């Protein structure tokens, strides 16, 4: 639902308006997989599959009623049909202390008169060192026929999945990663991994395009393709034994996009460029019946474009009237950061064996300390009282959060 309004007037007449935006995918798929063990130290898997996709990239339903008149219509892009097929073969090999996974993935995508093909080699290596230390390295190439289209308008962030078409080429990427893992004591696992990923043909809306308006036109006219790059490091620590268990995951990352038609062709941070991303999950069993778990997540705020300054591009002056044509700017694309996201979820679980069944009460709290996590930014104008008591309209920027603290109770029984 994008908007809804209804009005009832004193003369008895009524007006209503509602707008719904939706997109969807329908798939019919089949696949077959084989396992083959030709010799000790080899585990070969191969197979293939085919999927028929029907996409509706985006449609707007308007329902307007005025007194007895009603206008209900669907404005939207045409359905897109495509067939995707893939074959793969991979071998898990054991060569002494070295474990290797070698694979080749082939895929094809038929849309309209266009048939895209791609061969994607993949390799993963894992070498065991003394003292429970393992070294890991991998290289993978990927092709993606369904693309994430992220709206970066600050008022209503929206993600859509759209297919590759005769005009929109499939996304291609390759990734290399390397790291080490070690197990301490009875079961504390620590791993550290660095990665670099390069993406080609990522898509984005063109500057000024709107996902909401102009849907009667082809959605492909509104998008452009470019390059993407991300890199970073991931730390993962997990404790699996004892009454208190849990894990900590931390990612330090950078994520950029570059399009010839956006930001003057200069590279800029992706909306989901998240410098720090941390998750901490702890579970404590007080006894066999009662346990408490908590999950705390933290992430750097989304990168958004916010016009923070303005300047004239034209001036007109006369004896009667003068003024400026001005434009607003934020400097570079996505140069502003929304407030960081963090929240704590708690859950108390109480289990009891009854005569004929096991019953469990679960008491939960989402966002336990009621942090106002921002969902989107609203640009508005407010009347602000001046020192002389008068009111003056001023622009204001507001962060809107939509999910406050949410308590929950559930009751389960097993018999």
């Amino acid at each position, binding site marked *: 639902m994008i908007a809804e309004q209804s009005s009832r007037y004193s003369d008895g007449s009524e007006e209503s308006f509602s707008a719904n935006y939706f997109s969807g995918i329908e798939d019919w798929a089949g696949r077959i997989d084989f396992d083959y063990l030709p010799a000790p130290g080899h585990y070969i898997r191969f197979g293939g599959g085919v999927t028929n996709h029907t996409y509706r990239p985006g449609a707007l339903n308007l329902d307007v009623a005025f007194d007895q008149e009603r206008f209900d219509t669907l404005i939207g892009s045409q359905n897109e049909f495509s067939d995707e097929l893939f074959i793969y073969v991979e071998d898990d090999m054991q060569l002494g202390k070295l474990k290797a996974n070698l694979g080749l993935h082939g895929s094809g995508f038929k849309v309209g008169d266009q048939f895209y093909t791609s061969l994607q080699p993949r390799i993963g290596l894992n070498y065991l060192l003394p003292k429970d230390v393992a070294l890991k390295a991998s290289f993978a190439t990927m092709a993606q026929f369904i693309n994430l289209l992220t709206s970066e308008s600050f008022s209503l962030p929206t993600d859509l999945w759209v297919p590759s078409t005769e005009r929109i080429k499939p996304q291609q990427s390759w990734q290399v990663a390397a790291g080490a893992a070690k197990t301490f004591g009875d079961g504390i696992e620590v791993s550290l991994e660095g990665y670099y990923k390069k993406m080609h043909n990522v898509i984005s809306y063109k500057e000024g395009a709107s996902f*909401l308006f102009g849907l009667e036109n082809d959605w492909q006219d509104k998008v452009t393709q470019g390059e993407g790059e991300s890199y970073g490091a991931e730390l993962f620590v997990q404790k699996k034994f004892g009454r208190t268990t849990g894990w900590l995951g931390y990612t330090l990352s950078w994520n950029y996009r570059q399009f010839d038609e956006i930001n*003057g062709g200069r590279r800029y941070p992706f909306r989901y460029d998240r410098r720090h991303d941390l998750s901490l999950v702890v579970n404590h069993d007080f006894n066999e019946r009662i346990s408490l778990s908590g999950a705390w997540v933290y992430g750097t705020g989304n990168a958004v474009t916010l016009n923070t*300054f303005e300047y*004239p591009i034209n001036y007109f002056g006369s004896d009667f009237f003068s003024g400026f044509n001005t434009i607003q700017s*934020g400097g570079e694309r996505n140069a502003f950061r929304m407030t960081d996201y963090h929240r704590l979820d708690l859950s108390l679980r109480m289990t*009891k064996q009854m005569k004929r069944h096991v019953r469990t009460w679960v*008491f939960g709290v989402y966002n336990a300390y009621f942090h106002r996590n*921002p969902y989107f930014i609203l640009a508005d104008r407010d009347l602000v009282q001046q020192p002389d008591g008068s009111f003056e309209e001023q622009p204001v920027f507001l962060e809107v959060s939509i*999910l406050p603290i949410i308590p*929950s109770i559930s009751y389960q029984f097993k018999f």
Partner: protein
Amino acid sequence: MRHILFFAIGLLTAMSFSSCGEDAFTQIVDIELPEHEPRLAVNALAFSESNAFGVLVSNSRSVLSKEEFSVFPDAEIQFSGPNVEGVTFSYTPDDGRHYTVLSPDWAAGDEVYTLDIQQTDYPSIRAQQRMPRAPIVLDVTVDEEGALSESGERLDEIVIEIQDEPGEHYYALQGELDYQYVDENNDTIAGYYSVWLESNDPILSYAEVDRRGALICSDGAFNGNTYRFATYTWEDLPIGLMSGSKLRIRVTSLSRDAFLYYRSLDQYWGADGNPFAEPVTVHSNIENGYGIFGLGHTTIYEIDL
């Protein structure tokens, strides 16, 4: 166990009440905007066919600022490059611009022009542009009712054929018409109007260039080759009706910065006021400041109608 249960239910009930405020599911907080340091803002676009070059020198401000913008009559402007050395600017209050008069053939293709501006209260600014070479227009033809508009109407077609040179080039296409006829009193009436070009060619987009409507594009799709721009106009061209009527097609080779500025400015106005539109960054190329310094080299092709 029972105590824990009661405590948990009590705590959740209290949390429920605390979260069910007037508008519990929408929380709004003010954002602190970063401080903006005002800088000089420039609007300076020079075209080879015009010997008047106007430069607007003003300043930027925070969107929250209540201070007025300024134009600076005391700004010192130097424009340097082939055929323009030593030119001086004078301030014009009507449009707040500083103007200089250039020689008729001032524009030298492939040469660099530099704009330096000093104003006592702001850091000095500088921008450089390479003047593109004059575009090569091979032919312009008009075909009466030879085009179909996007909505299916038959309109006069204007085909503009150019020879693109190797390398990166950006074009703007504009049209204008000089008409002349003798009325029933034997008076000769002459006039002029702009011919607004439109096209179904997806590589062309609309922009306002030098205060007139234009179709603009990059040469990415036809680099180094000849290309025929198929355009049409909603104006009724007086084909064969008025002897002496001329269609003038103006093909301008824009510097990359000028092209990016015009394209982004059109997108900016198109998105203005639409909260669902993708953000638009209007292109700027001013070191230590904001705004645009851009150049265009124009070839004019005339045909009798």
